[in-house]
């Protein structure tokens, strides 16, 4: 909890982030979708600020959203908080069953797409092969869901409301998957076997509040290459 300056913080929204983090980007997309004004504060990975360490003492990670002096961590938790606090432009569906489906898919994406992709980026050899295999299998499921839910009229998983929770949770793939592939040295994206997913990616990238936020791939590749080398270097030296 913030000390002393809670009164100053009334109504203020602050986001602690890293420019290269897909988890931070999700939160920015949610805030922009709702038209919520916020102060973005760039953090340093190797020199974490006192504010970050006191706002998220358990994980010491970004993103952290600070609203009215109260810090909230974990990107999916933050997204639900944003949806419940600012009612305009709902991110989650209104119907309880549809909300449960959205939460199910968000969990699937995190466990089966996001985490294996991150693990594949930061590993090599057999360990990486295992993660790439998991990722490919998960992408088949994602393509299946895209085929079932999307068409020429319904471009996003949010349905008739346009972009929604599942789109924002999966959205990191549109800017980071190619980077992860290039840096990690493997291929998961395949327009031939994933036509509907590729259509969705193309549409997502063009969404007016998303497009200006996308980072150039070369910049991400350079940064993640360094991260991967640092991680593999550490592992080799153990």
């Amino acid at each position, binding site marked *: 909890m913030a000390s002393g300056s809670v009164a100053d913080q009334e109504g203020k929204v602050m986001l602690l982030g890293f420019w290269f983090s897909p988890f931070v980007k999700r939160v920015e997309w949610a805030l922009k979708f709702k038209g919520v004004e916020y102060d973005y504060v760039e953090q340093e990975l190797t020199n974490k600020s006192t504010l970050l360490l006191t706002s998220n003492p*358990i994980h010491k990670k970004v993103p952290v959203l600070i*609203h*009215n002096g*109260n810090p*909230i*961590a*974990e990107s*999916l*938790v*933050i997204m*639900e*908080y944003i949806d*419940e*606090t600012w009612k305009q432009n709902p991110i989650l569906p209104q119907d*309880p*069953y549809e*909300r*449960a*489906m959205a*939460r*199910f898919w968000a*969990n*699937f994406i995190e466990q089966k797409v996001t985490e294996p992709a991150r693990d594949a980026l930061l590993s090599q050899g057999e360990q990486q092969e295992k993660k790439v295999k998991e990722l490919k299998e998960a992408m088949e*499921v994602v393509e299946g869901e895209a085929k079932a839910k999307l068409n020429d009229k319904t471009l996003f998983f949010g349905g008739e409301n346009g972009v929604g929770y599942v789109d924002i949770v999966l959205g990191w793939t549109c800017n980071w998957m190619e980077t992860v592939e290039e840096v990690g040295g493997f291929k998961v994206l395949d327009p031939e076997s994933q036509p509907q997913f590729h259509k969705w990616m193309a549409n997502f990238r063009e969404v007016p509040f998303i497009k200006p936020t996308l980072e150039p791939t070369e910049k991400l590749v350079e940064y993640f290459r360094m991260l991967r080398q640092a991680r593999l270097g550490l592992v080799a030296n153990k």
Partner: protein
Amino acid sequence: MAGSEVKVLGTWASPFALRVHIALGIKSVKYEWVEENLEAKSQLLLESNPINKQVPVLIHHHKPICESLAILQYIDEAWPSAPSILPSDPHHRAVARFWAAYIDHKLFTWLKGVASAEGAEGKKVALDQVREGLVVVEAAFWKCSKGRDFFSGAGIGYLDIVLGCFLGWLYVAEKRNDVKLLDEEKMPGLAAWAIKFCQHGAVKDVMPDKDELLDYANMVFQAMPKLNGQCPS
């Protein structure tokens, strides 16, 4: 019949299925429990959860809902009358969801790690990790409960259910390794909370007997020593 509108596919030993039992009990919802055999999954389970093929599944008006945390929130939203499972204030809800993620992704992973750890040193490291996790959750308990009986206050709610479902498996890890994990001295808040939780009206009749769970765990681990104590989610 009202009960047949709500079905739960679960197993008696699954802590995740127990969450659903308790949540429906809090809301006084009548339901039909279908005990699944994970070695021979029913057609209904495979059709209801084709992606993960796991329990628990809640089926309401013939629509399946999967993933225990999504189910808990669905129960709260589909049966909105009191008592509530999640708090009403968005910040308190965010705190509850944060700790639920910690319990599932960190604490439960470490608890599973105890079963798969090899050698005395490996076991000790795994057990220490669980204890450290419980110390962190002890601090969260004091902040959330503000001196009352449960994480959610006077009655049980989201976090109580999310953590409480693991009490039986914590007991199993303690007995199988001859250690104390939920230590009254180091975690007085959680130790007192655990007793009250197990005695709660919505819990006591559905929580599996911990010695039966221990017998079951001993049998499973003896039959497959390399199994890492996976609980179905």
